[in-house]
């Protein structure tokens, strides 16, 4: 994200012909005039489809959401439409469902982000070795990335069945589950969070590993050569050299997975036995905030309150993303 900030008037790399700066021709033919107009106007024509569509369907809804949050806006009764003042936000603070959803979202978020990024780092460092069939390993890492979350979640739902699921079958060898006393992956917060976090991890480890790998390959070789001479082990190499060198990408993935993780919707929706109820389990064990927003808006038909909730989530995401980015920056900055 460079080269866009402040550009001094001296164009070195991206210089193109500038209209009206060259030696002035005494008379211009219609053709030259047309070309000049073309050069001056066409850039705006080229960017306008993007900006019009983006303003209409991207930016405007985001701002308009702020207005809706201060209104009563019901899908079933448009006549009730009016200003609500702070009522929606006041209700939010006392809403147990919201705090429960926020708690679930945070729990699943931590269980999914931390192992996800750590494993991705380790896999990337292994993929960074000289390997046979490396293209296949890389493409294999993308299998989960292209698989629809709806489809994979439905598979995991079978895997995490209480009575005959593969997860419990595998855990029975470790003595963690048995036919007489199986783990019910839908019953408790901890169990359902782990199940959902597993799905999230499955989906994104490979993708993040490729992001890291791309960055790792740009680390100059001589940095490692100097370190290897000092007798640094490969494990130390990874944490002392590689990670600090690819810090921007690490921060980028932390930001991405924070923004994505706090909006988790599809996995908790499809994991439910009653898919479209959006309750996140019989007692809301794993209901996330994004799910609750959907339920309030399109099941309870209260769009105003759903908008207020969206704004609250937006602020939370903003704060946590910034905090995580700063934290990651400091962790990586502890070198030398």
């Amino acid at each position, binding site marked *: 994200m460079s*080269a866009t900030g402040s550009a001094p008037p001296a164009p070195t790399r*991206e*210089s*193109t012909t500038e209209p009206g700066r060259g030696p002035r021709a005494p008379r211009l033919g219609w053709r030259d005039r047309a*070309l000049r107009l073309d050069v001056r106007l*066409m*850039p*705006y024509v*080229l*960017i306008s*489809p*993007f900006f019009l*569509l983006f303003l209409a369907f*991207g*930016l*405007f*809804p985001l*701002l*308009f*959401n702020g207005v809706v949050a201060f209104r009563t806006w019901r899908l079933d009764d448009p006549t009730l439409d009016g200003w609500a003042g702070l009522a929606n936000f006041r209700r939010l603070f006392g809403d147990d469902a919201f705090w429960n959803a926020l708690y679930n979202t945070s729990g699943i978020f931590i269980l999914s982000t931390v192992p996800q990024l750590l494993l991705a780092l380790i896999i990337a*460092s*292994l993929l960074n*070795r*000289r390997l046979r069939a490396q*293209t296949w390993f*890389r*493409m294999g890492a993308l*299998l*989960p990335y*292209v698989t*629809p*979350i*709806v*489809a994979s979640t*439905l*598979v*995991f739902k079978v*895997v995490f069945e209480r009575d*005959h699921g*593969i997860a419990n*079958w595998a855990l029975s060898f470790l003595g963690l589950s048995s036919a007489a006393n199986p783990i019910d992956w839908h019953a408790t917060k901890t169990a359902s969070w782990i199940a959902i976090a597993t799905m999230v991890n499955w989906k994104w480890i490979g*993708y993040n590993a*490729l992001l890291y790998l*791309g*960055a790792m*390959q740009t680390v100059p*070789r001589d940095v*490692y050569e*100097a370190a290897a001479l000092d*007798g640094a082990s490969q494990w130390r190499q990874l944490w002392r050299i*590689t990670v600090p060198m690819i810090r921007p*990408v690490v921060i*980028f993935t932390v930001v*991405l997975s924070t*923004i994505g993780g706090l909006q988790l919707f599809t996995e908790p929706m499809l994991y439910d036995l009653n*898919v*479209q109820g959006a309750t996140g389990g019989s007692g809301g064990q794993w209901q996330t905030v994004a799910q609750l927003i*959907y339920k309030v808006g*399109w099941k309870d038909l209260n*769009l105003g309150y759903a908008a207020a909730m969206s704004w609250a989530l937006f602020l939370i995401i903003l704060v946590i993303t910034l905090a995580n980015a700063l934290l990651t920056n400091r962790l990586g900055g502890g070198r030398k």
Partner: protein
Amino acid sequence: MTIARAPQDTPGSRWTYLFLLLMLAFSAFPLYWMFVISTGDESAVSKTPPQAIPGNQLLTNLREVFTLQDVFFSAGLVNSVIVATVTTVAQLFFCSLAGFAFAKLRFKGRNALMVFVVLTLTIPNQLAVVALYILTGKLGLNGTLLAVIAPGLVTAFGVFYMRQFIVGAVPDELVEAARVDGATVTRIYRSVVLPAIRPALAVLGLLTFVATWNDFQWPLIQLQGTDYPTSMVALSDLASGNYVLYRRVLSGALVATLPLLVVLFLGGRQIVRGIMEGAVKS
């Protein structure tokens, strides 16, 4: 370890391969399991130890999925193709146009507008669904494919990605030479830029297609309860209700996943490259 070697020059050890193979198995396992269940009868779901070999019931299961009432699975597939194709084509066209302008043309406000694009890169649009729904409602689009498609037609990421690629892939001299020859901006886009950015179009196209095909929340909000859902919404219908048969659910999932496995098989190298390069540039 006293050998002065970078990781790239260190051959993978046996443990490296073992670990990577384990991860590969972990990645592929749910897809394999999807296949096993969708080819078997319902008893395969509840076998201990688990059924390991696919059965021969795939066609039976598929026939049931496609003929189920209230699910509209074939309409879902058709709609997914429409939505994903239209979105992909629009993204490629609009984002390459804007990317070209930002990369190679000079105009007033260019830098400020580009900063705006970068700033909006990470805005979580999903949080605006409520207002977006009201907007599409006012436009009279709710419950239509157009409402599903409209918000995806352009992304800030697409413009950013295209700009970054065009800055490096299209030499300024070439643009200038074309201009001296009297080529219009449109002409330059068609004959100079487009041929040079094919690889980037492939990457952005594949990523957009995959993301759009897999999108769930917005299509669910728009098309839930209609008889023309997208394949993901149809799948969620298939998995709802009191009497859910997993051989059906997962054979539906298999069909809805298959197009993307084909995409990965055909364009996997480009996607890998696109993601890895994206990392360097961001």
